[in-house]
């Protein structure tokens, strides 16, 4: 029996802004249906890495392969097809302010599926109720809280049943209960649809609960510190800074 091919992999990837490289030497391979967490101190390039992995931005160097397509040599058509098979939650949710939450979730379905109008509505309502927004479907983004906007952003990201979902700080700004429900949802999506999930997060308990693997970015060396299951970071022989990062979050306050 062969192990399944990686759905997302990168080798010696370097990322940055303009000509400035902020993080280099990022290499890993993620199997389908796994959850990967990207962690590291603020400003170390987590969101930039997420954008590069999803194909939204070009990296400074190295190779990335997503859904079996090498992003370095992918044509515009291939990149478009990748973007349709993936979902992305932005840090600021990026909901369309002139559309209601329901219309926001319906939007990708209307654009990219041939499903009839009633079915699109049904799916959008279902996706919003998955994230606990069954009663806020007709609200505009300006009428809801930041946490609700985050959840609506997730509902839009999963609208098309994507194979890979990229989540930029999904639980930031959420109360512990909603955050816990979100973890449930992430695990459920992985278990039922075998969705691969890549997320940027600072919530160590949530990462320990959900993630199969974890990339630690070390801003001091400007390189990837470690790639391993998150529980490994709690062990004393783990990467020292990553260990400190995880252990600090575990300390009672």
């Amino acid at each position, binding site marked *: 029996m062969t192990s399944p091919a990686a759905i997302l992999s990168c080798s010696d990837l370097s990322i940055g802004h303009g000509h400035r490289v902020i993080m280099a030497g990022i290499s890993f391979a993620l199997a389908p249906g796994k959850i990967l967490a990207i962690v590291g101190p603020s400003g170390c390039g987590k969101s930039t890495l997420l954008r590069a992995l999803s194909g939204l931005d070009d990296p400074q160097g190295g190779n990335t392969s997503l859904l079996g397509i090498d992003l370095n040599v992918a044509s515009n058509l291939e990149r478009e097809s990748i973007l349709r098979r993936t979902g992305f939650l932005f840090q600021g949710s990026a909901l*369309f*302010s*002139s559309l209601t939450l329901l219309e926001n979730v319906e939007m990708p*379905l209307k654009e990219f*599926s*041939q*499903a*009839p109008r009633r*079915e699109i*509505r*049904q*799916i959008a*309502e*279902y*996706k919003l*109720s*998955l*994230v*606990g*927004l*069954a*009663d*806020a*479907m*007709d609200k*505009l*983004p*300006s009428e809801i809280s930041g946490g609700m906007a985050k959840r609506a952003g997730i509902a839009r990201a*999963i609208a*098309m*049943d994507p194979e890979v979902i990229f989540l930029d700080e999904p639980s930031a700004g959420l109360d512990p209960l909603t955050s816990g*429900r979100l973890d*449930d*949802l992430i695990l*459920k999506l992985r*278990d*039922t*649809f075998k969705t691969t999930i890549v997320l940027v997060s600072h919530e160590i308990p949530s990462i320990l609960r959900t993630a199969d693997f974890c990339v630690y970015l070390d801003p001091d060396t400007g390189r990837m510190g470690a790639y391993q299951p998150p529980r490994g970071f709690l062990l004393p022989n783990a990467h020292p800074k990553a260990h400190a990062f995880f252990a600090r979050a575990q300390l009672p306050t």
Partner: protein
Amino acid sequence: MSQTVPKAPLVRTDVQVDGLAVVVISGTWKLHDALPDITVKGDRVKVLAEGLEDFDSSLPAWIYGNFKNIRQLDLSQLPPRLQALVNLAEKSTHPEKSGEHESLLEQFGTWGVESSSSWSRALDHIGQTAWGFLRLVIGRARINWSDFSLQLQTTGVDALPIVALLGFLTGLIMAYVGLIQLRSVGATVYVANLVSLAMSREMGALMTGVIACGRTSTAYASQFGSMNVNQETDALRVLGINPVEYLGVPRILAVTLMVPLLAVFAAFIGVFGGMVVACAGDLSVSQYLTQAVRAITFKSFMVGFIKAIAFGFIAGWSGCYRGSVAKRSALGVGEAATSAAVLGITLIVIADAIFAVIFNLFNF
């Protein structure tokens, strides 16, 4: 025998003697396929899966959408992962329904409450603007003067080409219309009086006011609206700075100063436009100019000038007001810009009518 072609999504409903509706689902359920319709009577439903091959989230969405209002829904015979997906959604559903239509009376009441609050917001803004100008006069206003010089340029100098074009064409049109009537009574020489009087007393100010609403009010509304979206006005407020005074007063002042000057410019260009038409036909240039200079009295010039000051203030205020009450969204900013232009032009026409009555009463 292996099945290579996926079966279409199918549903079968049997109602048992005790009223329980048994819904049997089968086939392949995919997001891109058309899903079957179902209507279930009663409030007890049991869903079964027989020959269910593959599904994506369209199936839990279909179950959720069709049975969310069923009182007794039995999903226990479904595959565990399908059950889990449906139940995960149901946990977040609350019984009350949003999006109910309001009755006519409710709509009327909502309209009444909203319009009264919109009037009170407008009055509040007028008060704040007046207070800002008062503080400006006594030298205590906190104003962003770097904005002021920029606004003088954008509302005044940058508007010169469009004001010139529209002023010229207005004068030209009036001369054409005037000549039709005056020619029939042999008084074509008075076309110069008509054009110069109308341009200096009325049309110069009115046209410039309308242009200011189109250019400046909408720009102010968008600026203030975007600042609302980015919470910049809130940031000023927490610093103890009144945004109406700090940002609104210099803008309103700039447009109030610039519109009268532009109106004078428009009036002169309009007289010139009329001259082009008049001199192409019946009159000589000297005849036209002599008549025009005779017609423009200091009184009529002042009438136009005073009106233009008022129109400038209205254009500036409507933009700042609509922008400051804009909703915090891209749509809100757009609505603010549109309503600023509409409000400005409406108020200018109303003010013009009031001026006409007042000047007539005082024989001005």
